């Protein structure tokens, strides 16, 4: 377990924020996650890393959970506070030999976009399309990070996005070429449904990678 100093808190919506911390000698593979908590506290939660492998800082994207213990406390942390980091963990990673050769489809709901942000920031020249499922337009967290034509915002509660409806509905209306490599990150129901749709569209099991957010 390492202690990392908080550099900045960036509020993206009233409930969602990015914590930027010192990186020190921490290394990770883009897509991995860490566990985070206040130094000395036993309460810890898992967060995917939002920043890129090459950034000289470490960022995580957090949504404050109603009644949540850690996400509420973390939102109140200030520059100069210390947070304990453990990790990196997880196998939700890009394959080196595919990065420059394949076309990627990233599907994320809510803050599930965090590891996808890290993928794209680490490999900005990737050939990708990103479907981001949220309720409202304001949840398009830092959409300027993505090339405009490659980012499709699917809003389920209002018509302000690029597509009105869930990511799964977008997928049904816009079939995916079978040689696409897919990474799905977000809530369990989205992953389950999207998986089914992609399989029916001819995507084989191997190129579908998933990470569940709760």
């Amino acid at each position: 377990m390492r202690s990392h100093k908080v550099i900045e808190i960036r509020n993206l919506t009233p409930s969602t924020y990015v914590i930027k911390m010192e990186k020190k000698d921490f290394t990770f593979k883009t897509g991995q996650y860490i566990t985070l908590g206040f130094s000395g506290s036993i309460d810890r939660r898992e967060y995917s890393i939002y920043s890129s492998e090459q950034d000289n800082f470490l960022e995580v994207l957090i949504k404050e959970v109603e009644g949540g213990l850690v996400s509420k406390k973390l939102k109140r942390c200030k520059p100069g506070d210390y947070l304990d980091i453990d990790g990196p963990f997880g196998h939700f990673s890009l394959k080196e030999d595919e990065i420059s050769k394949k076309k990627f489809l990233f599907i994320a709901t809510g803050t599930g976009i965090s590891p996808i942000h890290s993928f794209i920031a680490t490999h900005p020249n990737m050939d990708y399309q990103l479907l981001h499922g949220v309720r409202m337009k304001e949840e398009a967290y830092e959409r300027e990070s993505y090339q405009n034509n490659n980012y499709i915002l699917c809003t389920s509660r209002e018509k302000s996005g690029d597509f009105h409806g869930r990511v799964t509905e977008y997928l049904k209306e816009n079939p995916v070429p079978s040689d696409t490599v897919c990474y799905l990150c977000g809530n369990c129901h989205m992953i389950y449904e999207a998986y089914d749709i992609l399989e029916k569209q001819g995507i084989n099991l191997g190129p579908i990678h998933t990470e569940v957010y709760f």
Partner: protein
Amino acid sequence: MKKVAFKTLGCRLNQYETDAIASQFQNNGFKLVPFDKEADVYVINSCTVTHQSDHKSRNFINQANRKNPDSVLVVTGCMANNAKDELEGRDEINYVVENDQKSSVYSLVEAHYNGEIFHPSKVNSDLFSYGSTDKGFHTRSMIKIQDGCDNFCTFCIIPSVRGRAVSRSIQDVLDNVKSVVANGAKEVVLTGVNIGRYEYKKYKFDDIVEQILDLDGDFRLRISSIEPDGFGDKFLSLLNHPKMTPHLHLCLQSGSEPILLQMRRMYNIKRFKEIVNKVRSVRPDFNITTDIIIGFPNESDQDFESTCNIIKELKFGHVHAFKYSIRKGTRAERMTEQVDEKIKTLRSETLREIADDVKLQYRNQFIGKEQIVLVEKTDGENAKGYGEHYVPVEFKGYELKKNHFYKVKITDINKDIDPVLIGEQVK
């Protein structure tokens, strides 16, 4: 001569580690006695994977203390990591040894008798420095190739108590296998927490398996428990090697896709079936055994039915099923839709009946066929052991010896809860 008694709970890795510690005690003049007898030293190698394992570990601590309150009582294993403060607060326990220091249990006890009292945290913490298991409790020789797990399944406490995944050097593993085979081991079993994720320098799991299979000697290789992720087709092709036993304990945990996702397992049902079908397309009688968790949060009747259906469909040779119990600090602890204990119990009964039927069907197919049995117990004329498929066999023969292979013709099956194949030695 001082007497030592062991109790091991939980996984095969614990069994291996107990075997190695027990050998060390015996090599240093201790006499091994059953756990229910009076001993000078009691070693409990605990488990904490469920509430029930914690409960059992506590019972064995009480039992050891009742048998000899003046004994040196050592508690090690995963419960020692997970409930360290509680255990260190109990006066009757002399040493609470976390997994990292487990290989030093003998040194601690030796120092204790020499009047030197060390805190276990001050001793060697090498995960792979166990000695040989030649005087252990098992005929099969277990080889530890890996420890820890990075998968962080939402129900599982093991990454917290066993730590991050670490692999043993490939040369150490090969030397260990050569040494046990040279000392007469006929069956080598690979153990670890998540062996499919073995990775040492450029070598992955299939590389180490291939190199072990290529070693000379009259032995067979058994893969113990393995997760369905982390290995590729190269490993599956090695399953046809003549030294490889046709048995895999492939952990499924649930037959429901949504539950697998919530467990954060890294495969889906289709992938699991693909592996099983690939393996059985070459060898239809290949024994696939598995683990199932009953009553994971949110498990509906439909989810449970899917699990029952896949057990019937894949005809597992054995199902190790256990009721889900909350483990503190895991992600599933915070899941709100916990399943009622009564429902878990009912589902367990249903599943057990299905699993028993399927097991009997699986084992019945061996009647009339031959098995190569490694004898574990014998009086010279009657013997018990396991065939290459890891199915228990009892047979009659002539001048039978322990730790020898015999070709056995299966003639019948004993239809107990754990059906045993009955046979006769083929001369």
